[in-house]
């Protein structure tokens, strides 16, 4: 039973996740289009809704070119590492009610008491995909891109990890389910971002997460104007698609983590104001709705920022990370600890 249910859960989550990745790309193209006063993709299917399928098909059918100068084993391994890490982290994310069936959580692949640490683990391993791809490509643009990416990810990982400590201090647990449970009581008033007093932690997390996923305004690793394509310059066809999927997958994961840690996870923003529904279907679907809505809001914010802010310069990026974000995250830890100890 355990094995069957696990396989079913993994399959369902994987399909939903990959579809979400494909449609995040479409969402981005649509939204950035609107921000720049144009339509974005409209031709394939109604409102361009079939565009992701066609894009996928195109990438799949393209010729896979491997340049002769590459270091082959690592060149082939790098996109696999990137995509695997991106897909792995979704495994520890709970996304619905704590409903159990035969003693197993239905709306989480695995519910671990060190879920948060696993997420940080996977992030720290994910750096290798980018670092190795740039080095093994044997191309100066790729190498520069991957050096930038690795340095940026290592620097911002610190601020990212430290910004989460405040939440852990409040919950006194590393389990993502416990973190959500603490925020469930009074709805929006007990969310970590408001009631928990973690608004600064949220902002630090937000900025560090943009840098961690190499997204604008911190997209220096693939700055087209200076580096052609950055670390994936030499990759084509499905190997390029794997990097692409990894990037958007990471965006969604970061959105899920922000939702769980700061925005109350799958709980409704009204808390006790609305009595818990008696209907089982509503009881199951409402949390899923709130979770997806919050992640969608986060993705919207991501794309909005990309469409609005210009790219940082490299020295600005580094000094911002080390001289502002890191001390701010540390101050937040001290502040939260003091507040928890004194109040």
């Amino acid at each position: 039973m355990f094995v069957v249910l696990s396989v079913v859960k993994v399959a369902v989550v994987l399909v939903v996740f990959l579809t979400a990745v494909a449609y995040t790309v479409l969402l981005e193209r649509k939204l950035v289009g609107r921000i720049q006063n144009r339509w974005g993709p409209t031709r394939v299917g109604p409102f361009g809704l079939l565009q992701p399928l066609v894009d996928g098909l195109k990438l799949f059918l393209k010729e896979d070119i491997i340049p002769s100068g590459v270091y082959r084993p690592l060149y082939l391994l790098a996109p696999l590492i990137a995509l695997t890490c991106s897909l792995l982290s979704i495994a520890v994310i709970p996304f619905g009610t704590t409903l159990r069936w035969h003693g197993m959580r239905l709306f989480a692949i695995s519910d671990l008491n060190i879920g948060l640490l696993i997420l940080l683990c996977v992030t720290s391993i994910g750096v290798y995909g980018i670092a190795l791809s740039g080095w093994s490509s044997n191309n100066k643009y790729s190498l520069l891109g991957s050096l930038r990416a690795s340095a940026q990810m290592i620097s911002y990982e610190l601020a990212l990890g430290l910004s989460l400590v405040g939440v852990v201090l409040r919950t006194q647990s590393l389990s993502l389910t416990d973190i959500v449970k603490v925020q469930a009581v009074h709805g929006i008033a007990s969310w970590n971002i408001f009631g928990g007093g973690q608004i600064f932690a949220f902002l630090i997390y937000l900025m560090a997460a943009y840098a961690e996923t190499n997204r604008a305004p911190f997209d220096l690793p693939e700055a087209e104007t200076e580096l052609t394509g950055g670390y994936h310059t030499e990759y084509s066809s499905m190997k390029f698609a794997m990097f692409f999927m990894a990037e958007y997958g990471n965006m969604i994961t970061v959105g899920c983590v922000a939702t769980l840690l700061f925005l109350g996870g799958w709980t409704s923003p009204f808390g006790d104001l609305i009595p818990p529904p008696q209907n089982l279907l509503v009881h199951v679907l409402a949390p899923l709705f709130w979770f997806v809505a919050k992640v969608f809001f986060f993705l919207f914010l991501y794309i909005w920022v990309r469409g609005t802010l210009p790219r940082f310069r490299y020295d600005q990026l580094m000094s911002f990370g080390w001289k502002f974000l890191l001390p701010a995250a540390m101050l937040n830890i001290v502040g939260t600890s003091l507040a928890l100890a004194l109040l």
Partner: protein
Amino acid sequence: MHLVLFLIFALFALAGAANLLLQKHPINSALSLIVVMSSLAVLYLLLGAEFLAMAQVIVYAGAIMVLFTFVVMLLNEGREEKTWGSRAARTVGFPAVVVLLATLAAAILRAGRHYGMVSLSDGITTTQDLSKVLFRDLLLPFELTSVLILIAILGAVALARKDDGNA
């Protein structure tokens, strides 16, 4: 189940370590070291030390090894060369390693009688339990260690600093 997993990952760790020595290219050696570190993390997990396992991956396999690969990538070192020194190290090194390992194993086995041992099927030590030990029973050694690390960081900064006064 625990034993099977232990055997698999112990094998991974050993294979990674052997590969580290045999590979001629520094980046392959660095990657083998990552395999060793990650397999060790799984072994920790099997012994019920979940926090230690994750810290092992985040700190060693993640942060420290990224710096290793970073340096290899930046210097772009080629294949390793055989010199007189490396041949001498090979002849002396292997017996020395055997002696060192034997001594360590004997010492650990003897100490195990005093402190007790863990077995593979033991329950998980939660992070809460670990932090109680670290921050209550062993607070002074823990803080002393962190001061020591801070001194090391300051030393590194002082050494790396340029001597023109305004750097």
